[in-house]
């Protein structure tokens, strides 16, 4: 292996090659390289929103797809998400400044009694990777934490995660309370976690069960689009 051939100078790549290289670097979880790529694109007068969607979201879509297909696993995805976060930290203030379009807002947390936040973190990161705003409630959330935060944040989506058979039924408690308060239809409710399945999601009254973080992103986009269509229709 020749060192010289392997050396890649990001600033010498044209826009197209640079974005392709950023896809590779996100895939390999190289945070500094992603930050450098974002800064170069900004210097080249790319709109922050364009950098987000074309370079970062584009790259994370590939990561999400390979995660869904059992090619990448949690450690690689966490590293990729961490690299993405580095790029987002640069873009976030600029996105607000330039009034970039809002994709949607999600409140997410593991349910009461459940400490296992790996899946929840992955979903949060991939949702951010897809341009959503994410309010992370952390672990061990009682029904009030979900509902109060969803209201105060004006969220579109409530996401609940559970890894244990002893904690997954609590999701129904949250949904039942939303129904009682007459606010169930104000939110898209997505659930996930290793012991769950589609049928369980339906039985407890969630809008959808999401098998993994990549599916969560696809599902969220679909529901948000549907919501916008409904609003446009009437």
């Amino acid at each position, binding site marked *: 292996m020749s060192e010289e051939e392997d050396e890649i100078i990001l600033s010498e790549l044209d826009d197209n090659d640079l974005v392709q290289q950023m896809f590779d670097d996100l*895939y390999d979880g190289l945070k500094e390289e992603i930050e450098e790529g974002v800064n170069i694109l900004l210097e080249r007068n790319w709109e922050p929103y364009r950098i987000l969607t074309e370079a970062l979201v584009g790259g994370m879509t590939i990561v999400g797809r390979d995660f869904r*297909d*059992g090619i990448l696993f*949690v450690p690689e995805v*966490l*590293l990729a998400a961490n690299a993405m976060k580095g790029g987002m930290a640069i873009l976030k203030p600029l996105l607000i400044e330039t009034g970039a379009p809002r994709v949607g807002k999600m409140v997410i947390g593991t349910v009461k009694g459940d400490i296992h936040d790996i899946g929840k973190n992955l979903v949060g990161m991939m949702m951010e990777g897809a341009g959503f705003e994410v309010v992370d409630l952390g672990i061990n959330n009682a029904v009030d934490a979900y509902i109060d935060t969803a209201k105060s944040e004006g969220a579109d989506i409530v996401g609940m995660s559970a890894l244990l*058979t002893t904690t*997954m*039924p609590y999701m129904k408690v949250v949904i039942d309370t939303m129904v009682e308060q007459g606010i169930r239809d104000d939110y898209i409710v997505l659930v996930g976690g290793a012991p769950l399945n589609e049928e369980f999601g339906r*039985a407890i009254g969630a809008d959808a069960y999401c098998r993994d973080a990549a599916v969560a992103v696809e599902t969220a986009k679909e529901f948000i689009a549907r919501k916008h269509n409904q609003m446009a229709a009437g």
Partner: protein
Amino acid sequence: MTNPLTKLLSERDWLMTDGATGTNLFNMGLESGEPPEFWNVDERAKIVSLYKGAVDAGSDIFLTNSFGANASRLKLHKAEDRAFELSRISAEIGREIADQAGRTVIVAGSVGPTGAIMKPVGDLGHAEAVAMFEETAKGLKAGGADVLWLETISAPEEFRAAAEGFANAEMDWCGTMSFDTAGRTMMGLTSADMVQLVESLPNPPIGFGANCGVGASDLLRTVLGFSAQGTERPIIAKGNAGIPKFIEGHIHYDGTPDLMAEYAILARDCGARIIGGCCGTMPEHLRAMREALETRPKGQRPSLEIITEKLGGFSSDNDGTGADKPAARPRRRRARG
């Protein structure tokens, strides 16, 4: 002194473990989100009944109610200082039940994951994890557990940390991981990887294997993966009783006792010597499994087709072993300075 589990393994071709802890406790009134380990003190009679359910159904080994009795998980309930105590009491109750059984029954001290991700990807350091596992292990030892039983682990780092904690507590152990993501653990470990991991430890477990995961079929594919490595170490199969369904406010697993009996036979044919259930496995399942193991002869190692035919399909096309595993995206190599 020879560990009672090692002795039993030298006398018998197969042993049966217990079934579910959570599912059984729910049926006794545990509420979702409540830590089951508190019941060791607050609802002792129900824990006695949990253990007795397994022993009376014919289990040779049962696991203590201490899956979440580590400082990291108990912290959630502001009980991080109770890891030793709750572990000890779970084993004390177990010792009492086992000693009344009238035959050798092994008290296996359950040790579950910390729930945290270890460094470098996560925040939990090795020494910190070792200390937590050691504390739980010492509690279980003080309560009279015969052996420790690490279960539902997905990260190799955490498996190693637990082994070190157990060595510090001078306890023999068994260890299983959950293969729930395309035939691998959540962290990407394959069945073949686990065999290597186990043999690389300075204090390898008495037995190793798989628990929980997706369904009985997937679990047996994993067991076949262990066997294919030519390991001599006893293999453990502890699969779920089917898939969870939510019916009238409760979780039910759709695996019938007959299906679990079929699973137990196939698990033995796949090379497992310690066979039991996990989530959804109730005493009636265990009884059917025991009867099948006692009355039906050991058969040939089954093919994947036979497993599918008898227990249903797999959750993914392959399990990351063999040549047909999917390839990662080709990338330009780069030298990191």
